[in-house]
């Protein structure tokens, strides 16, 4: 059997983390190829449903990252996002959803190395946790309900 390769989606803000990941590239720092980035203008734009949708579509792990507090390009987007995450994460945890699979992070445009570390650490962590079978199982279109 093939070794499990985690599928990880990263939701990142344009101004800090996306640029930070650019810097990782410019610095030629190598990291695990398991992460796919989706660009947002701001962490404030990241709807929590996107996280759920990514899990439902087969992601094993998720990275959500943006500007450090006080660094938001739009002043407060990351502060609002942080509040939402605090609440959302506690709800997910309460429902038994594996919050270890969601890495929230601040990565600035200057933190190319941090981005590489973040990706590597998250990939290693998810690799350890294995595929997110319990969520994927309920998401499969093939699953049939016989008696509801």
């Amino acid at each position: 059997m093939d070794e499990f390769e985690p599928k990880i989606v990263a939701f990142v803000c344009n101004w800090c983390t996306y640029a930070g990941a650019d810097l990782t590239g410019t610095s030629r720092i190598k990291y695990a190829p398991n992460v796919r980035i989706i660009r947002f203008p701001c962490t404030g734009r990241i709807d929590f449903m996107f996280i759920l949708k990514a899990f439902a579509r087969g992601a094993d792990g998720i990275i959500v990252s943006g500007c450090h507090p006080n660094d938001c390009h739009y002043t407060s987007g990351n502060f609002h996002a942080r509040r939402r995450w605090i609440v959302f994460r506690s709800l997910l945890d309460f429902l038994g959803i594996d919050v270890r699979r969601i890495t929230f992070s601040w990565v600035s445009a200057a933190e190319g190395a941090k981005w590489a570390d973040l990706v590597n650490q998250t990939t290693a962590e998810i690799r350890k946790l294995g595929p997110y079978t319990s969520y994927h199982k309920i998401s499969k279109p093939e699953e049939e309900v016989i008696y509801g």
Partner: protein
Amino acid sequence: MTPQNKLLKKECLPTFVETLVKGGKLLYAPTKENERIEFKLIENFSEIYLDYIQTTKSIKSIVFPPIEKLFEYVADKEHVEIKDVNLNTIPETIVFGAHPCDAASFKVLNAVFTWDCNDEFFLTRKDKTTVIGLSCKNHDDYCFCTSVDLNPGSTEGSDILLTRIENDNYLAEIMTEKGEAVYKLVKNLFEPAPQVDKNAFVTQLPKLFDLNDLRGKLSFEGLSWMQQSLRCLSCGTCAYVCPTCSCFDIQDIGNQTKGKRVRIWDTCALPQFTLHTSGHNPRHFQNERWRQRIMHKFSYEPERLHVYGCVGCGRCSRACPVNINILENLIEISGGNK
């Protein structure tokens, strides 16, 4: 076939059930867990709870599941392939301990799903389902099967109907070939039936209104539809617990290249049910939707399908979050107690 009566001693009941379970069919029966009584897939007789008045949800899910896959598809730029559901994979199923109201509901569903063209999903499920009914020992204030021309000992819809008689033994009325087939599996458990008056062993539920009266009084305009329904919150509970409500929606799950088309329950109580894309909604207000619910069951279905869309199980009233009691309203419409 000619119906035949048998006796099933109470001590044989567990063996009866467990033999059926071992026979490879899925067996659903009422269970009680945390005060919740529901039909569930059973493995042991001990899970079954028969002293119930009514379950929250009906047995319609077995023949008309909340989600029914209609087909799967894969598609790319130039090809679309539709993969049929193999109806042979639908399991043989036994519903054990359903009350006569539930058993009778399949007839109503059948009328809808065979009107002009046959819905094979429903029909296959129905054909593969054997209903072992159980006459009612008790009723509550929500029950009104006698008012919709059924009764607590009615064999309508049951392949076998059990009635608990003296000494907690069961009178088994074997009504159909499907019932006969089950009977044959466990023939040795049955004894010849004694002469009993079945009605003495079922609950006595007075008739509270007359269906024909009701139908005669129903009118689109002029009734207090609004007064009756103002309390209504526009949820779909009544329809989803109803054994005869059969409205559905068709949805695709997946994306344009891979997925399935499913049928899922829907309800006329939600405004979206009839909402046009243009924004126009023929049944915008709740009283219009409430009227549709009552008219559909007691006027349109009898007119078009020759069945009444109600078996008097009272589930909608019990489940209603704001105590809209359909019996109360039907009595009001039909003009009082009979």
